[in-house]
């Protein structure tokens, strides 16, 4: 890779062809100030802060866009450059409202930091005082054009990473502004997905998030903790800022990862908002229509007495959230399954997961890993969305689909019973009711791809043509399909026929809804849907309080005679169902591992220490076992490990006949 050599500020640097001067300098710890440049986004060289002098070239060159060349002699810190940069800053300050004392981002602002760094003690130009509007129409995001320096970071992140391309520039010269869609206010935009990425990259106080302003500047925060978001199966990496013991701000982590450091609306708002919810801080026991606080000893004694008799009668069950960590799932599974020998253990998304597992089975039997990391959507040249609504199920995957389609010009096909979730960018859109019509559509598409009869309907014929020509198609399967395992199998058949082969498995991205669905497969997902059928005397529920419970679980809780709810938040209606409430640590107080769809086991770190009278899950389970005269057994199932391990390369997959499966 070191095929060229250049000298920057007297330091000899090696670089690869195609590297920019800025990249080489950064790698060699040589500081060049930047403003519009941002890691992971296309450099545009518009702010001119990164100008450098190259010997033999009379012009000043922008380091972020100029490729490094062999033998270049570059100076980054001359007096001339300092004056130029200072002048640029003064012009920016004179242009709009950059009076820091009135700005929520003061202290966090990159423009302000650069001004201080360059010793800007005055502005030699008259201030324009041009009044621009302050767009406060969006419930979460505020866009004050008076503070904008037109660095275009928001436009680039919105187009290149989120794929929404809501933002762009309007007009020109002094009147240039960021605008949404066709000159709309941000709150009226119909393409904005409310992910807040624009605010995360904004270097000034132009785009701010109401939830985070005035809760602590990044620099003032006591701690920054890297963790992951548990809300969907992608497990996006996050950085949480802690101030006075609470989470003050949540941001996406890595600009270099495929997601470009974005978070979706769920992560961006759901995570920080949950820190303000009512907490359960001590065990509570129901007395009539209300609860009274109890000691752990009393609560566990009560639970043990109910559990003991119920489990002897085979009328005890446990229901767990798939947002729990591997470690939590292991402990709970070791207690209920291996110590209590109960078979009635399941997850909230149990039915969906069983559906997927059943549909995947014929391919798992072939030793094939039946899915691939969602980021591979970015590598694909044809995307087929089947009965999915990625913008709800795994929103960052929806970003991948939009970016791939709009920027990389991948073909996009939608097969769904209802509305097309990617209306406007699909190349073929097919309506098919589940399950019968959808099965016919999938089968006839597969036959056409395999060289069978060409479908007559134009959208079908177009889809078949796209799939025949595609080099790396990818299939996004919605959770609605899991209600009909044969459809999952048929979708995978289509993937095999279209040669959707990726290095880590078959080119299929299932929309598993919970953060740790894959980890739950081995540990807590039951063989059948006992929850809907059983009349229970005892039901233990472990909730994270981050996802609303579905009808199936709430009904089961209503039917059960005695319900223990273990949850961090006072979540209704869950709390109303409980006979005993046990406090649990919230997502920001826990640590452990998640088995993500991206094929990585990612670590969730404790962001703030747990508050209240809490006990660790393993201590609770151990004490319960003791009270029942048992000893906690080691878990027989390891979460995550060997879940759909690839024993053979995906290219060796073959289609299966549904008759065979049934």
């Amino acid at each position: 890779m070191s095929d060229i050599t250049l000298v920057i500020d007297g330091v000899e640097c090696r670089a690869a062809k195609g590297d920019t001067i800025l990249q080489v300098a950064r790698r060699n710890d040589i500081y060049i100030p930047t403003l519009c440049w941002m890691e992971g986004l296309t450099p545009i060289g518009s702010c001119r802060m990164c100008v450098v002098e190259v010997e033999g070239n009379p012009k000043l060159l922008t380091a972020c866009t100029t490729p490094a060349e062999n033998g270049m002699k570059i100076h980054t810190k001359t007096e001339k450059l300092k004056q130029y940069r200072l002048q640029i800053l003064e012009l920016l300050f004179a242009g709009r409202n950059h009076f820091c004392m009135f700005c929520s981002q003061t202290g966090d602002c990159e423009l302000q930091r650069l001004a201080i760094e360059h010793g800007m003690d005055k502005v030699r130009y008259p201030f324009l005082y041009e009044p621009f509007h302050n767009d406060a129409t969006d419930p979460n995001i505020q866009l004050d054009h008076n503070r904008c320096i037109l660095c275009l970071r928001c436009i680039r992140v919105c187009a290149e990473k989120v794929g929404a391309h809501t933002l762009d520039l309007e007009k020109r010269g002094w009147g240039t502004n960021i605008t949404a869609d066709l000159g709309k206010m941000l709150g009226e935009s119909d393409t904005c997905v409310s992910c807040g990425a624009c605010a995360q990259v904004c270097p000034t106080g132009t785009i701010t998030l109401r939830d985070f302003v005035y809760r602590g500047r990044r620099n003032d925060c006591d701690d920054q903790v890297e963790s992951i978001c548990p809300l969907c199966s992608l497990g996006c990496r996050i950085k949480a800022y802690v101030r006075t013991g609470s989470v003050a701000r949540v941001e996406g982590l890595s600009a270099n990862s495929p997601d470009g450091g974005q978070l979706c609306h769920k992560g961006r708002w759901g995570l920080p908002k949950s820190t303000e919810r009512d907490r359960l801080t001590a065990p509570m026991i129901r007395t009539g229509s209300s609860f009274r606080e109890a000691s752990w000893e009393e609560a566990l004694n009560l639970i043990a007495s109910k559990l003991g008799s119920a489990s002897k009668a085979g009328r005890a069950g446990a229901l767990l959230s798939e947002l729990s960590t591997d470690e939590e799932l292991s402990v709970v599974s070791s207690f209920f399954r291996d110590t209590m020998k109960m078979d009635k253990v399941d997850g909230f998304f149990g039915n969906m997961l069983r559906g997927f597992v059943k549909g995947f089975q014929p391919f798992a039997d072939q030793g094939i890993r039946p899915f691939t990391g969602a980021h591979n959507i970015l590598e694909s040249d044809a995307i087929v969305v089947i009965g999915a609504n990625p913008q709800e199920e795994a929103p960052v995957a929806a970003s991948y689909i939009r970016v791939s389609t709009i920027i990389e010009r991948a073909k996009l096909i939608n097969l769904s019973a209802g509305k097309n979730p990617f209306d406007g960018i699909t190349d073929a859109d097919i309506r098919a009711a589940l399950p019968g019509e959808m099965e016919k559509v999938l089968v006839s598409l597969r036959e056409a791809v395999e060289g069978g009869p060409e479908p007559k309907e134009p959208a079908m014929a177009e889809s078949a043509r796209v799939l025949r020509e595609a080099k790396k198609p990818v299939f996004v399967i919605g959770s609605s399909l899991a209600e009909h395992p044969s459809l999952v199998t048929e979708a995978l058949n289509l993937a095999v026929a279209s040669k959707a082969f990726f290095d880590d498995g078959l080119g299929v991205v299932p929309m598993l809804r919970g953060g740790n669905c894959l980890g739950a497969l081995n540990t807590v997902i039951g063989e059948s849907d006992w929850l809907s059928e059983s009349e229970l005397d005892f039901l233990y529920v472990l909730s994270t309080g981050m996802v609303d419970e579905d009808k199936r679980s709430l009904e089961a809780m209503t039917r059960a005679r005695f319900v223990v709810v273990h949850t961090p938040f006072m979540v209704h209606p869950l709390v109303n169902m409980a006979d005993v409430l046990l406090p649990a640590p919230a997502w920001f107080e826990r640590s452990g591992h998640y088995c993500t769809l991206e094929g990585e086991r990612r670590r969730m770190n404790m962001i703030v220490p747990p508050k209240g009278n809490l006990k660790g899950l393993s201590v609770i389970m151990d004490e319960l076992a003791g009270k029942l005269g048992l000893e906690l057994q080691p878990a027989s199932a390891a979460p995550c490990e060997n879940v759909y391990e690839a024993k053979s390369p995906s290219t060796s997959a073959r289609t299966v006949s549904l008759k065979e499966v049934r």
Partner: protein
Amino acid sequence: MTMSAATLTRSDLETRLLPLADRYRGRKGITIPLLADMQREMGYIDPEAVDFIAKELDIPAAEMFGVATFYAMFRLQPEGKYVVRLCRGTACHVQGSARIGEQLQRHLGVQEGETTKDGLFTLQYVACLGCCSLAPVMMVGEEVHGRLTPEKAVDVLEAVRASQPE
């Protein structure tokens, strides 16, 4: 070409814009000629037309809007029946055309480049109309009016408005 800003129906858009979209489908770097053709077809750049074309060709609507607002040659409103071209050249400027412009904006209730609600006048400022001896000058449609004051300019427009058939 003039036309009213009445809402366009879906089938209107399809018959007028689909042939145009087909001409540009699958090509790159097309935004400016595409917008120019749209303006030729529709008389102006209609937001609904942009939305339609953007979806048809998978171009982000915001990008097309950005280009349409950047270039002065694109109109986002239909042109009025009479284009009022007020000269802002040197001679007219010296003779106070700026005040005339302000008065016209106030009187018509529009900014420069916009069309009045009744669709009668579009106000434009232009560089020179070539009759500096009559400064300050404005053209209303094809007719030139010289030696104006703010009051006279308003009278000219009102006379035109009064001459309209009911």
